[in-house]
């Protein structure tokens, strides 16, 4: 199969635009495409409520979906490269669970969460899990992955325990474990955007190094990669980004795992192509999932984590069966 990165980019961008429009239009209040244009350029010409819904609910939400999807995919790319294993992502390794467990623990201990402290707690959880992961298994990347999976089981169980223990906050905690874009706002979009931008620049600069991390250590080192420093930087960035996503949207599975896989099949393992296209793919997948979860039980909505996993698992299994080298 010949590689067609440009074609894939084009298709993904078209899909993204279509879904952005669909994402704004669909919902409990029907909105037409011309409403969107008017809401952006002359909000006075349409009803106050419609303008508010478009400008402060729907648009932040779809941008949130785009940023979160890209962030999850970026984390997936990083984890898969650093652990030299295509099954790795922040969800599988327990980094997400670490963040959500800490949030749950906070709720149980009765810490009240302002918008500021919640990210800090989620962040601490994600970072601690990453550090713990390294402490448990410093020998090789295979044991690191298995330790991560074990850690994930443990932390998920602990999160469930926090749900069980906290009667009144149970719904709040459950929200973290299932994921939702329902709380999107412009403030959150801006925070997410800045973290993602910094992460993208740092990881983007390390694209060639990540290519070499896929080889054996000796090859990477002798080619000029400081593998220890590179791994630490990449993991720190991915953990911070994971923490940011989890504290705003809870745990959203499979997107980080799936997006790089899809893209790798079409454009190969070179990170200079893999990274941007995976992020684009992540945005499309998450945007689509968000539309589905709002549409399926409208006017109510399903947690998006359920949709990504329900859609993701069968697609992923099909991919695994088709491809020999995974």
């Amino acid at each position, binding site marked *: 199969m010949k590689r067609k990165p440009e074609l894939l980019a084009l298709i993904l961008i078209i899909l993204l635009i279509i879904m952005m429009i669909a994402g704004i239009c669909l919902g409990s209040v029907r909105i037409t495409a011309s409403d969107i244009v008017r809401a952006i350029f002359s909000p006075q010409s349409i009803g106050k409520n419609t303008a508010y819904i478009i400008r402060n609910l729907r648009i932040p939400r779809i941008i949130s979906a785009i940023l979160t999807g890209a962030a999850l995919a970026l984390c997936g790319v990083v984890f898969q490269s650093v652990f030299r294993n295509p099954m790795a992502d922040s969800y599988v390794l327990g980094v997400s669970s670490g963040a959500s467990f800490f949030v749950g623990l906070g709720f149980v201990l009765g810490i009240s969460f302002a918008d500021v402290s919640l990210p800090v707690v989620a962040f601490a959880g994600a970072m601690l899990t990453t550090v713990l992961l390294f402490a448990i298994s410093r020998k090789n990347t295979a044991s690191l992955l298995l330790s991560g999976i074990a850690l994930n089981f443990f932390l998920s169980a602990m999160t469930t325990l926090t749900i069980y223990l906290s009667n009144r906050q149970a719904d709040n905690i459950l929200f973290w474990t299932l994921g939702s874009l329902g709380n999107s706002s412009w403030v959150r979009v801006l925070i997410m955007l800045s973290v993602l931008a910094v992460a993208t620049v740092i990881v983007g*600069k390390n*694209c*060639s*190094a990540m*290519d*070499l991390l*896929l*080889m*054996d*250590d*000796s*090859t990477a*080192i*002798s*080619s*000029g*990669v*400081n593998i220890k420093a590179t791994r630490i930087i990449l993991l720190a960035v991915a953990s911070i980004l994971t923490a940011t996503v989890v504290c705003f949207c809870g745990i959203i599975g499979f997107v980080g795992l799936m997006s790089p896989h899809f893209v*790798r099949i079409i454009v*190969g*393992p*070179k990170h200079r192509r893999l990274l941007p296209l995976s992020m684009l793919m992540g945005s499309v997948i998450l945007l689509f999932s968000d539309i589905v979860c709002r549409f399926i039980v409208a006017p109510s909505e399903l947690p998006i984590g359920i949709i990504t996993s329900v859609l993701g698992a069968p697609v992923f299994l099909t991919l695994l069966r088709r491809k020999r*080298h995974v």
Partner: protein
Amino acid sequence: MSENAISIRNLTGGYEDNTIIRQLSLKLSKGGLTAIAGPNGAGKSTLLKYLIKKLRCPDGTALLFDNDVNSLKQKELAKLISFQGQYAPKSDEFTVRELVELGRFAYGDSMANSDAVDEALKLTGIEHLADKYITRISGGEFQLAMLARTICQNAGILALDEPVNNLDPRHQIMLLDLLSRLSAQGKTVICVLHDLNAIMRSCNCCILMKDGKVFAYGKTRDVLTESNIREVYGVDVQIIEKDAKAVILFN
């Protein structure tokens, strides 16, 4: 600058609880194709790992072109020595060209220098494989692609760990001739080889290692003698000279 490409002073080391190399000293002058031979576990691969800083030695123990390896950044080191190991994975679907491009890492992130890549592909005779996936080529072709990667790193020293392992006789000779041509152009080529006859045929110099030490080092014909081979490997051999060539027969 002195004439030494590689200089090692009294190196002792190995892995956590397993000392492999014992008080090894070695000076290798610039240029030439030098083989490292010796039984399994003699410390051949370990020695190379110290040169690329995969393993850390004390300051001042290992010098490349008079630079202490410990004082060099990884990228600077990569411009002095390139390395080809035994265990490169071929699980990812890089094309041959993409694999070879990896050798340009030390020269900047753009990897724009496609001339160096083209030339390395040409030298190794695998231009026709450039767009093939490394998962779909033979073990020998992969070995050549890895060599092209090592060459396009354009370092003064090429260190290779068993580069001819998967190759048929024709490719084996082709590869060793190529290494010998590179050394004639001023590169210092040092490679671990097990085939003593291949060493006899292609390498000017040979380092014979035993128990983490240099047992003998010098011109290949002086090092690979019946008595040295007997003592190092514990096998009985006979060296037959014919038409100015020497062949080692294992009895």
